């Protein structure tokens, strides 16, 4: 591990969220240590995005608390310190990549040079002058990621940043995330691609709004006797199902 966790960047305590009358997160506890890359894995519909929205403070919650860097999630003081990548790319299609990143950078008080560095980090320098709506889906989501990186936030909440990318780009982006953690940034990243688990310091397996497991990958494999994260996840699902037969 790159840096020892001195404290928890995110503390989720008995979080309850209802969406459309459905209990998406019934009663969730979670700690995200500072300076680590924590992967949030699990099937879609399992509550990953809702949890992330709650951490950023855009989700109306129905109980419990979410604390980020010692402040309640969504506090004004956190708006400089937490970066959020939505699952669907949220960038302006009618602007170029550069104009998008510069704009979000300026909102966060960053310079043009810092915007260019963020574009470089997501390997879009060759497309900096291209309108976002002329990019491919993967390029668009990287443009959206650059708009988060430009702010150099202390906590990054990234909802499926590598979806639809080829293996080389995925590896490069994970290198970026590892680099952020090495500089003391906390990265909470969701994915439904289990093989990305090997790049995380910790893994949180989320299913039906409950945390099935929260540990390092070696611990998880040890405990389940599985050979990789995917099989470990399946083993945990079977175990949970046999424990509470419905």
């Amino acid at each position, binding site marked *: 591990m790159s840096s020892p966790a001195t404290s928890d960047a995110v503390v989720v305590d008995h979080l309850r969220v209802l969406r459309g009358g459905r209990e998406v997160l019934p009663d969730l506890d979670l700690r995200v240590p500072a300076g680590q890359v924590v992967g949030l894995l699990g099937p879609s519909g399992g509550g990953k995005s809702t949890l992330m929205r709650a951490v950023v403070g*855009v989700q109306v919650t129905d109980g419990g608390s979410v604390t980020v860097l010692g402040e309640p999630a969504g506090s004004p003081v956190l708006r400089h310190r937490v970066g959020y990548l939505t699952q669907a790319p949220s960038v302006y299609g009618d602007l170029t990549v550069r*104009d998008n990143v510069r704009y979000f950078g*300026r909102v966060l008080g960053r310079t043009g040079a810092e915007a260019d560095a963020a574009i470089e980090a997501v390997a879009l320098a060759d497309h900096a002058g291209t309108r976002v709506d002329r990019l491919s889906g993967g390029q668009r989501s990287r443009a959206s990621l650059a708009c988060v990186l430009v702010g150099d936030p202390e906590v990054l909440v990234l909802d499926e940043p590598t979806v639809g990318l080829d293996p080389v780009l995925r590896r490069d982006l994970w290198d970026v995330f590892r680099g952020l953690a090495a500089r003391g940034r906390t990265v909470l990243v969701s994915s439904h691609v289990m093989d990305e688990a090997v790049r995380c310091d910790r893994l949180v397996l989320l299913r039906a709004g409950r945390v099935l497991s929260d540990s390092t990958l070696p611990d998880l494999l040890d405990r389940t006797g599985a050979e990789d994260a995917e099989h470990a996840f399946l083993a945990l699902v079977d175990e949970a199902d046999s424990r509470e037969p419905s």
Partner: protein
Amino acid sequence: MNPRITLATAGRVLRQLRADHRTVALIVVVPCVLLGLLAWVYADAPGGVFDRIGPALLGVFPFVVMFLVTSIATLRERTSGTLERLLTSPMGKGDLMLGYALAFGVVAVLQAVVATAFAVLVAGLDIAGPLWLLVVIALVDAVLGTALGLLASGFARTEFQAVQFMPAFVLPQFLLCGLILPRDALPGPLEAVSDVLPLSYAVDAMQDVGARADPLGDVLPSLGVIAVWIVVALVLGSLTLRRRTP
């Protein structure tokens, strides 16, 4: 509120508009075509009807156009996720709304200068008061349209709905603003309603400039009423921008 963020937002909105040549052309050219058409319609009619209606239309165009452009643009911000991203950033709601108002104010000045020049030089409109005052009123009307557009977009879920708000918000004001029938000739209750609606004051102010050599004393109270409407619409509009959503 932060001037850097407000200006960055105004610049971003203008950059989006600049990329859309056809919209800019429509905003600038359509008022000229309509004014020309109106001058032609009344070419052989006695009584200087065009000199009465022409200035009023110079006040109606920026209001209608900016209402439409703003309500669609804001709705796009909501549906594309960029609004949610901005509201998790240090941007204040006031920064966003003022940024839009500034950007569309610039466009309104351009539109007003071109339309006024066309009306006076080509269509032969006779203006007794100072021409700069026409441009100032057009600018205030445009900001009014932007403010009401922001408010209306809060109630629209789709672009179809946003477009339908235009006739709902604008046409009643148009019918009651004194262009169809002088306001003091309206039935009592309707006159009372028209005394409250902002477009009535926009049209009054324009007609004062058209008819009087020194209209400032009559124009300023009208602009004051419109300013109150702008503030009320912006305050109500800011309530529709929610940082937390279910």
